[in-house]
């Protein structure tokens, strides 16, 4: 049955010829390669939970008076968007869970993208030929942050409404076209009645579609160009060592999808996130104290805070203050990020292909630059909590702000050289061995201590096996006979004829084929 169905489809789509190579695709076994998978799977969870939410959320700024199951807000004026989110949280079964899972997944999504990017950066995974995938990745990061902001703005609560207000001001701060873009996007002066419906369509349709397309391109390139890998275990510039797609990677990665889903579900169950009923509906002349945006907007919020009160004014025109932290900073950040592979190739005069990743310590130059830049954004992130810190530390806002302005410059200047030094130190340190070995610590009668290293026992040391090339092997049984899908014998070398190189019938066999019992 399965056999004839498979044949039916295969005769039309040629799965056997086209997809076999994919089964053999090798995935390196290093843990850091999971970071991109976390991003991928949190995106899956975002889409699934997001579909649920979109069935109940009403993207409208129409004023309504709330009468629902959340009594503290009974009789309050609010927008339909806010009211529907309250209903989603209190009156729709699993609604609160889906909301919280969606929000947690968004935070994990952006977080894993950032960490994934750091891993690619610090190991040099972006070098030729992977510049395109790096650029796609940076665009994914921008889109992810942007879509996060849009989603978080949809409920029209007091906290996110304030964020939209700031977004309007930042748009307005764009030279030449700013006023136009702002009034176009908002359908008039702030606040208007159009922004929630427009954010909604961007958030649930346009940006996710672009993100999905870019993820497709990202992974497509990954298959085409194959993975990078760390040195060792038989890895060379001419191979990829690890586990094949089928069945090992498929099993692990699907399990991983469920683990990411499990973490999101656990967080959605146990850790409250964005309790908009506590913030209240958005009212343009109200504001809540100690408002923090989602973490990935923190660096921008911090930048808005530490920016000195400058504005460039010339006759008839001005470049407003919010332009510098709100547009110039992210503009420079993402442009430099995107150009980094080309910049580095130019600066280091290295235009060769690289398939073997670098240990960060072995490229102190890049590692220290990366660490310094990263620390700058960490300081900005910290600066988004100036008010909370001032309160907490019982010092004046003034002191905290000035401190952060200084730290913005000082910390990167310290982190850079220190990282450089640490890299050099690490290079000279001998590598810790992978296998743990027990030592015996002896205490002598006089109270002195001495350590005896225990000899490795048989089985203690890791046997490093040579990798088996899945794309160039003939699996044989005990008698040295090639094993075939149908179990029959094969004439060795049968594929060396005219069919060789066509990908079919050339004697090259996949690692795992449909076992006999299936046919």
């Amino acid at each position: 049955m399965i056999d004839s169905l498979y044949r039916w489809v295969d005769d039309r789509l040629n799965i056997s010829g086209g997809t076999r190579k994919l089964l053999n695709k090798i995935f390196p076994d290093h843990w850091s390669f999971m970071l991109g998978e976390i991003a991928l799977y949190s995106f899956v969870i975002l889409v699934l939970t997001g579909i649920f939410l979109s069935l109940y959320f009403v993207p409208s700024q129409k004023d309504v008076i709330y009468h629902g199951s959340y009594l503290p807000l009974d009789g309050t004026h609010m927008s339909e968007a806010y009211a529907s989110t309250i209903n989603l949280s209190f009156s729709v079964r699993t609604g609160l869970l889906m909301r919280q899972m969606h929000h947690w997944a968004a935070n994990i999504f952006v977080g894993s993208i950032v960490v994934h990017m750091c891993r690619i950066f610090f190991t040099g995974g972006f070098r030729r030929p992977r510049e395109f995938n790096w650029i796609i990745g940076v665009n994914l990061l921008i889109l992810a942050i942007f879509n996060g902001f849009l989603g978080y703005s949809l409920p029209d609560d007091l906290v996110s409404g304030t964020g939209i207000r700031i977004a309007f001001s930042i748009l307005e701060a764009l030279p030449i076209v700013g006023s136009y873009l702002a009034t176009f996007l908002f359908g008039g002066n702030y606040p208007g009645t159009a922004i929630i419906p427009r954010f909604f369509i961007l958030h649930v349709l346009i940006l996710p579609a672009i993100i999905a397309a870019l993820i497709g391109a990202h992974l497509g390139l990954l298959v085409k160009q194959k993975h990078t890998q760390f040195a060792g275990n038989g890895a060379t510039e001419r191979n990829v060592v690890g586990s094949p797609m089928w069945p090992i990677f498929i099993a692990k990665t699907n399990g991983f999808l469920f683990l990411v889903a499990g973490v999101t579900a656990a967080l959605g169950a146990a850790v409250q996130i964005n309790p908009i009923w506590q913030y209240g509906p958005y009212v343009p002349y109200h504001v809540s104290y100690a408002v923090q945006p989602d973490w990935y907007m923190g660096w921008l919020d911090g930048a808005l805070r530490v920016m000195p009160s400058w504005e460039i004014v010339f006759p008839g025109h001005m470049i407003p203050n919010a332009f510098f932290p709100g547009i110039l900073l992210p503009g420079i950040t993402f442009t430099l990020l995107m150009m980094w592979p080309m910049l580095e190739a130019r600066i280091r005069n290295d235009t060769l292909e690289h398939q073997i990743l670098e240990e960060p310590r072995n490229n102190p130059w890049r590692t220290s630059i990366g660490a310094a830049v990263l620390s700058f954004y960490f300081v900005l992130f910290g600066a988004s909590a100036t008010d909370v810190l001032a309160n907490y530390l019982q010092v004046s806002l003034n002191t905290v702000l000035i401190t952060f302005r200084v730290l913005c410059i000082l910390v990167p200047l310290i982190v850079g050289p220190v990282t450089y030094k640490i890299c050099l130190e690490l290079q000279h340190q001998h590598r810790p061995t992978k296998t743990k070995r027990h030592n015996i610590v002896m205490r002598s009668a006089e109270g002195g201590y001495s350590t005896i290293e225990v000899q490795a026992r048989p089985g203690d040391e890791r046997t490093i096996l040579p990798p088996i090339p899945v794309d160039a092997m003939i699996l044989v049984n005990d008698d040295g006979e090639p094993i075939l899908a149908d179990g029959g014998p094969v004439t060795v070398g049968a594929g060396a004829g005219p069919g060789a190189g066509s990908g079919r019938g050339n004697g090259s066999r996949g690692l795992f084929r449909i076992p006999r019992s299936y046919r």
Partner: protein
Amino acid sequence: MPDSPDTPDTPDSTGGVPAAGAVPQSPGHEGATGTPAGAHPSDSPNGPDSQPPTMVKVSINAPQFQVAAAHPERVERGIAVMFVLGLLGFAGFGAAYYQNAANYWLGGSLAVGFFGLGVGMVAWGKYLMPRGPFSESRHSAAPTEEEREAFLTDFSSRGKVAVERRGFLLKILGVVGGVFGIVAMFPLLRSLGPLPKNMFYVTKWRKGSYLTTSDGRRVHVDDLDVGSVMTVFPQDDVGGAMSQTMLIRISTVNVITAADRKSWGPAGYVAFSKVCTHAGCPVALYQKLIEELLCPCHQSIFDIGPDPDHPGWYTPAMPVFGPAPRPLPQLALYIDRQGYLRAQGPYYEPVGPGFWERGAQGIAQ
């Protein structure tokens, strides 16, 4: 479903090395021949290419094909337990849904379900499948020079015939495309909203507008005690985001904040735009003791205390701290014969954050 595909069951395999290893054999040896699909040597910028991989015979008993677990049945049992746990989790989720249970039951059971499934699958892949390592060959991402040459030849030779001789048509095509691009912007962008025109320069405040509270009451001169504040709007824009104004009673006598504002603060009342000049948040916090207005968004502070240079005068909401670049515009007030507070006229400059067309004075052109 076979539970460990194609993997021979090797109970307590501790990674012992069977005779047949995976040592690649040279061509000719054992008669293994043939080149796998696509395994061309290519001129790599990274030095000489290795030999094209030849087919190697690999015994199914090679250590790489053995499962990683030392005790596969135990692992299998453990995985089964995890899957059953997953089943229980999902069943629990169904029950919790049916019972309309609290969020942590719903999410908790779902999490258990996913964790059971996830741990089981990962363990299956990690311990019950061939431990490897495996490898595949790779080649330079760049095409060979011949491939490139062949492509470019095809492209330009055909292109010459079909396109280059028709350069004129190509130019028209370019113009048509450009025009389409421009007109497409109209529906895509222009119909989204109105032109800004003087939108950022004016608010709803007019000469004679009543200062009105958020619940629609007119503000009377007796309404505020010294040291208290209130948000006010023109009567035709109650709750308006751009016209929101902070009314503060600083004293009981006329408040002067500048030489040309001698009459703007009758009976100790002063009014400033509540829209922050930094990024537009409501400057909502009045700190009575230090006579400052604070914007909670990025902590800009505007001074409304006594003017140190002019005894008896007050500071007109000058930014003294934080990113706000300009003072909050002041609304000129008067008290009508019934004792109601009213505006002498509109704001004399645009309220709120800066924008490109706004010059130093911010006067509408």
